[in-house]
């Protein structure tokens, strides 16, 4: 690709992160990572434990400040924006360990992003009634329709994961960063959550899918990025990436 083509392509990107660097003291957690996501794309992000996946998520979503590089989202630079402003722009995330608002009912858990992200975005303004309908519908979609007024403490582990995703979806994102939504789930539960994520993607939501379960990664991803020790070592079609010698080496040990 020539430089001109690359620039033309860059303007079509939903997320364009370049040279992301993050250090914790002397430890380099991320070293000049480039990561691009097209609108509606399903991107798998894998790597061994400690390779920097969650750090990258935190840098993209604004929970951590980067030490270098630039991030643009939906055509604008978001480097100086804090976490909540990025959420309002449409950059949603779900957490590796579910972090529900434990004193609020499931409905109110979804009410927070609807009021603070969607309504604060400008343009549409949801009424109380619409907020109620939207959160009820979303919870129904995620199979939590029977527990609208329950507290998160009453949920099972897989239900908690669903709540985490539902709340991230309530921000009405154009890009969802899903950080290990499947960790610790059974075979059938994995399929269940995977189906939900695919359904979200069909609606046009791009997904960065961070996962350890390779079966799920291969089933879900259109493109695969591999991080090892803070370096990006592969980026391409899933079947090519997993055949890459360096990737095999990183996973099986040289």
């Amino acid at each position, binding site marked *: 690709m020539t430089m001109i083509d690359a620039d033309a392509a860059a303007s079509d990107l939903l997320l364009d992160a370049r040279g992301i660097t993050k250090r914790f003291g002397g430890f380099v957690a991320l070293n000049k990572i480039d990561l691009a996501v097209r609108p509606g794309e399903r991107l798998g992000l894998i790597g061994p434990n400690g390779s920097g996946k969650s750090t990258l998520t935190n840098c993209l*979503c*604004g*929970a951590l400040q980067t030490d270098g590089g630039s991030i643009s989202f939906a055509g604008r630079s978001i480097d100086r924006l*804090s*976490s*909540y402003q990025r*959420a*309002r722009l449409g950059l*949603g*995330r779900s*957490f590796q360990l579910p*972090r*529900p*608002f*434990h*004193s*609020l009912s499931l409905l*109110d858990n979804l*009410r*927070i*992003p609807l*009021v*603070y*992200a*969607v309504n*604060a975005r400008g343009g549409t303004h949801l009424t109380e009634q619409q907020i109620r309908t939207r959160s009820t519908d979303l919870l129904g979609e995620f199979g939590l329709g029977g527990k609208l007024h329950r*507290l998160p*403490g*009453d949920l099972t582990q897989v239900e908690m994961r669903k709540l985490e995703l539902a*709340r*991230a979806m*309530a*921000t009405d994102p154009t890009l969802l960063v899903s950080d290990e939504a499947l960790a610790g789930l059974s075979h059938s539960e994995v399929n269940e959550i995977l189906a939900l994520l695919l359904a979200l993607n069909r609606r046009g939501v791009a997904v960065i899918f961070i996962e350890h379960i390779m079966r799920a990664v291969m089933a879900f991803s259109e493109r695969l990025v591999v991080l090892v020790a803070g370096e990006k070592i592969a980026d391409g079609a899933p079947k090519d990436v997993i055949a890459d010698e360096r990737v095999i080496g990183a996973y099986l040990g040289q």
Partner: protein
Amino acid sequence: MSNGRFIALACLVGIALVAGSMFVTNEYYVFAAYFVLQYVVLATAWNILGGYVGYVNFGTTAFLAIGLYSAAALNKWLDLPIPVLILIAGVLCGGVGLAMGYLTIRLRGVYFTIATLALSVVVQTFITNWDYVGGSRGIYIMRPSEVLVFGSYVAYLFFLMTVLAVAAVVTARVIERSTFGFGLAAIRDDEIAAAASGVPVLRLKLVAAAVSGALMGMAGAPLPFYLTYVEPTSSFSLAYTVNSVAMPLVGGTTSWLGPVIGAVLLGTMQQAMTVLISSSVNLLVVGVLLVIFVIAAPNGILGLIRSMGGKKPDPETNPLAAMLAAEKRSSQ
């Protein structure tokens, strides 16, 4: 209940209190009730930051004393009517709350609490060395001469404190049911998840700190006229801080009603003990109650009542217990 109805009801309770006080012949009871109402304001104000957002503030005395001394100083300088002094104290302490919040609210848990305690020390040092208000010798306040329709000056001050208490409780309840209040609850439960859901965490915390500080300062403004003599040691009494923390925790921190229950209960008990036993036993009893509640009933009296209905206990929202648990986790 809608906000309008609640405000109407709160005003009715206030009117009933003032009317009732007029039939009381022994002025001591009005004096004691004033202190209880002052604690309703302080506990309610504390709870806006401590209960709704989970930031344990140990600087109540600082805000109260700033309100108190600003009123004393302005009275000496300009002789303004007390309601104006209350408003000025509110603006001043709101500003101090905002500044304190801006400097310290990024600190978590115990560190924030220590910073607020330090604020008390700084303010006390400043006041002790401020000659205009008497420094460590203290200052006598000449009560303004005019007393509207109330006759006795104590009755007038009681009326003002009732108005403040009603205003504080209404403010807390309106916040609790508002979008702002939901945002605060989200922050209390999980700041990072709240930010990821679009909640402007820092801004909301600062507003809560400002409102909380303003109400505390307003509670302090009529106090010099009540006591007619103020000096730093008693104005910065640890009792104000300990009580304003203990009362919401004993009552329950998630609702406006908790601090009111705690303040009325502990406040009345303290007044009774001061008269019947000794004034020094007060803090001991409060301390013991606080320990018992943090351990045995972390959601306070309200939480106890709810769980007695056979329902599952609410998730723990006790800010002090949460702070201690976080400390324990991080030290492991």
